[in-house]
């Protein structure tokens, strides 16, 4: 009896082992591309926007892979075994920093890769950065200290909402790549210059679009606090955000906070609120319903869309956002302008 049991158990274990092994045979070429970079510099970035920028500067001299792809939220990401491999293969790892992708330093450390981790926003001079809780600054009369916390002492990492800040990031990327591969310095400089010019034109175009929005309408109420740089650049006032945090990972607003946010919307005369793609929009929709204001189409702030989406490149993302905002706030976008 006991022997029979042991024999069956053995059979069971070997059967499971075979099943497991069979399941473990993926087409290898798909999982680990053989020497994907060729002789090009292998670079890994935390998320889709950074990938685009590094590709723009590096051109054919680099191969860039991203941990979080399009439509992936870089705030919340669970690393997988293949990511360790990406870390180890990379010549340099780019991130934004200031807890934008809080998992990145941990992943970098545990991979023990020799590649340096460059957190671009943290490399910029502190005085050029904006505070994370911008929306509270013009409300000193009220006492709502519930937003006070350690994390908000960090600057807002969403620099790219101001195109001039993105241009600073491009400069940093160019400098880093040049340090790693000085012999390609001319190529990087040329690529960076071309992209910078594109961004300058984009900035000019967006400013002209926004100029059609009546001054008194330039107010933003959004899903989470990511519009500080945008507001600074384009002369908007940030009325508030549903989550009151720059991260998508935060608790939902409490009943008292919701009441206060609704009050703020009413006081400010905001007619439309702007949820962002990817973050839970239930809170902002609920607030809009209570305050009886419209809800605009989703804005893209933290990542690119898939190629068939409205924000498949950084320039398209910014155009999509500004077009949505301008049209919702009573301005007009000249199509031939594009």
């Amino acid at each position, binding site marked *: 009896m006991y022997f029979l049991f042991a024999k069956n158990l053995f059979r069971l274990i070997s059967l499971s082992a075979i099943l497991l092994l069979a399941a473990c045979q993926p087409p290898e070429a798909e999982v680990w591309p053989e020497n994907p970079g060729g002789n090009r510099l292998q670079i890994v970035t935390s998320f889709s926007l950074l990938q685009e920028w590094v590709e723009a500067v590096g051109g054919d001299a680099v191969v860039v892979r991203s941990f979080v792809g399009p439509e992936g939220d870089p705030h919340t990401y669970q690393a997988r075994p293949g990511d*360790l491999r990406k870390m180890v293969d990379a010549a340099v790892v780019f991130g934004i920093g200031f807890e934008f992708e809080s998992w990145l330093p941990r992943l970098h450390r545990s991979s023990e890769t020799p590649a340096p981790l460059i957190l671009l926003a943290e490399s910029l001079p502190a005085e050029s950065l904006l505070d994370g809780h911008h929306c509270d600054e013009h409300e000193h009369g009220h006492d709502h200290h519930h937003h006070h916390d350690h994390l908000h002492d960090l600057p807002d990492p969403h620099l790219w909402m101001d195109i001039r800040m993105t241009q600073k990031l491009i400069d940093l990327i160019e400098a880093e790549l040049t340090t790693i591969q000085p012999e390609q310095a001319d190529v990087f400089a040329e690529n960076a210059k071309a992209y910078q010019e594109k961004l300058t034109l984009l900035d000019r175009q967006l400013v002209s679009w926004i100029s059609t929005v009546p001054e008194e309408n330039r107010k933003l109420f959004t899903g989470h606090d990511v519009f500080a740089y945008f507001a600074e650049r384009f002369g908007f006032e940030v009325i508030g955000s549903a989550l009151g945090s720059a991260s998508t990972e935060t608790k939902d607003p409490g009943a008292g906070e919701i009441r206060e946010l609704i009050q703020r919307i009413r006081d400010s005369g905001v007619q439309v609120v702007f949820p962002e793609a990817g973050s839970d929009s239930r809170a902002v929709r609920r607030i809009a319903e209570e305050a009886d204001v419209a809800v605009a189409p989703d804005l893209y702030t933290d990542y690119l869309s898939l190629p068939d989406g409205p924000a498949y490149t950084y320039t398209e993302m910014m155009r999509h956002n500004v077009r949505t905002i301008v049209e919702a706030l009573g301005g007009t976008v000249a199509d031939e302008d594009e």
Partner: protein
Amino acid sequence: MSEALDIFSLTAVRRAYLAILLVGIPCAVMGCFVVLRRMAFIGDALAHTVLPGIVIAFLKGFHLFFGALVAGIITSFGIGWLSRRKEVREDTAIGILFTAMFALGILLMGQTGSFRDFEGILFGNILYLDRLTLQAMAVLGGLSLLLLASVFKEMELVSYDPSYAQTIGIKTEKLRYLLLLLLAFTVVGAIQAVGVILTSALLITPAATAALLTKKLPLMILLASLFALLGGWGGLTFSVFTNFPSGAAIVLACTLFFGLAYLYRSVFRK
């Protein structure tokens, strides 16, 4: 193939395999008692109750691990105390304290504004382990196993037949507190490494698998440990090759063994 294999030379991957050993065995051993005493809920509960501990530790600037441990110990004693008489059953006590502690954690989290610092502990990733965490896991796991071994006979008796154990003079209440305390050690050690869901799965699933195949406790413990290692290492290997998320792959591999054992039992032992 050589391209695929060299990922195993990475320290982080080797640490993940080691972590399965350090966490899987204590979880599987403790899990046998948990399954025998029908308190499967406790793993999930303990894993959640550490939340207020880590939030307070964060606010006061202690190491989060310390906060988790204290909260785990408080919860386990709270469960023991609340269910010491028969008015409140143990599973009810677990249900009340688990939700209360978790709610307290959310409340306290309102003071900090963001979840992200706690993410590491609540949804720990087996690929992020550093040396210190592994050492903490080894100490907590080893301590639990040693303490358990020192009272193994009594604990076995109490788990199978508490009233008989009491009549022959075993202090069942003390043993119950001890078991809850050891569970807190094990669970806190494990969540730091692998997160809440995986901890609960490693505690219950291998033990439940073993319980399907034998009623003898020593053999059950042996089998549970074996299934924890097979499921853990198998799932991790699968995840390394396919790049599926490691935690989910491990849980599903453990569940696969449970399914096979269930099938085996249905076929061979009517």
